[in-house]
């Protein structure tokens, strides 16, 4: 009985291990990109673009505020 139980548990564990391995390692991800640290280049580019857009928006905002003040006078 004990032998069968241990056999079953062993089987279940190996199945779950196999499933994990399947789920995590066989799917292609950009691991190399991350290992190289090249992803920081992408982040830097995106952050720069976003900074540009925000600076533009802040500028527009302050221009409109100025006009509003002028009209109030």
């Amino acid at each position, binding site marked *: 009985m004990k032998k069968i139980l241990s056999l079953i548990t062993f089987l279940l564990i190996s199945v779950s291990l196999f499933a994990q391995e399947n*789920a*995590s390692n066989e*799917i*292609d*991800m*950009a691991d190399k990109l991350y290992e190289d640290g090249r*992803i*920081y280049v*992408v*982040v830097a580019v*995106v*952050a720069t673009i*976003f900074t540009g857009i*925000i600076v533009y*928006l802040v500028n*527009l*905002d302050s221009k*409109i505020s100025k*006009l*509003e003040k002028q*009209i109030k006078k």
Partner: protein
Amino acid sequence: MKNNWYKFLAVGLLYYVLIWGFLGRIPRQPVLHETARNLYFHVPMWFGMFTMLSVSVWNSIKYLRSPQTLFDTKAAEYASTGILFGIVGIATGSIWARYTWGAWWTNDVKLNGAAIGLLIYFAYIILRGSFNDEQQRARISAIYNIFAVALLIPLLIILPRMTDSLHPGNGGNPGFKPMDTEHTMRIVFYPACLGWICLGYWITNLRLRLKNLEQIHQENS
């Protein structure tokens, strides 16, 4: 400063999203692979669109209750920001579809629903442009806006859940379950939605102030 908190919130949240959206860990998924990160960028567009269009229709209802020009301009400007989010959403979705489903456009219910929904809102803009009388324009477009939202909700939310869709979780209840079992994506996704909504509010606010200045300028000259 006090009234500017949402601008800081928008910028802060979106910086976090842009940086952590790329650097954060995501679950390993077949088919999607790294493109799953699009969840942080493509889906918030639709959340932004829905928020903007809801505010728009809310102002339309307010206009019908008490006809003030301000409500009408607000409804129009929020709708146009909403349409901007919608166009960007459909364009990003198309790119994502090309690399996961294999075609720029598929006959998915949600895609066609989104296309029809956008066309309905294009018609809203055209409708607004076709009146010379301000009051007539405001009243009729307010009523149209209510009909538009009443169509958009079944098109984008109800129908895709009732049939099979390529979108994850449709034909059932969409959610993160298939996408994210470790909650690593939620901590970026929710801030992304909030950030884009705040940015949309900011842009609409700028447009409204510009409209207001235009009006004052016309009255003076």
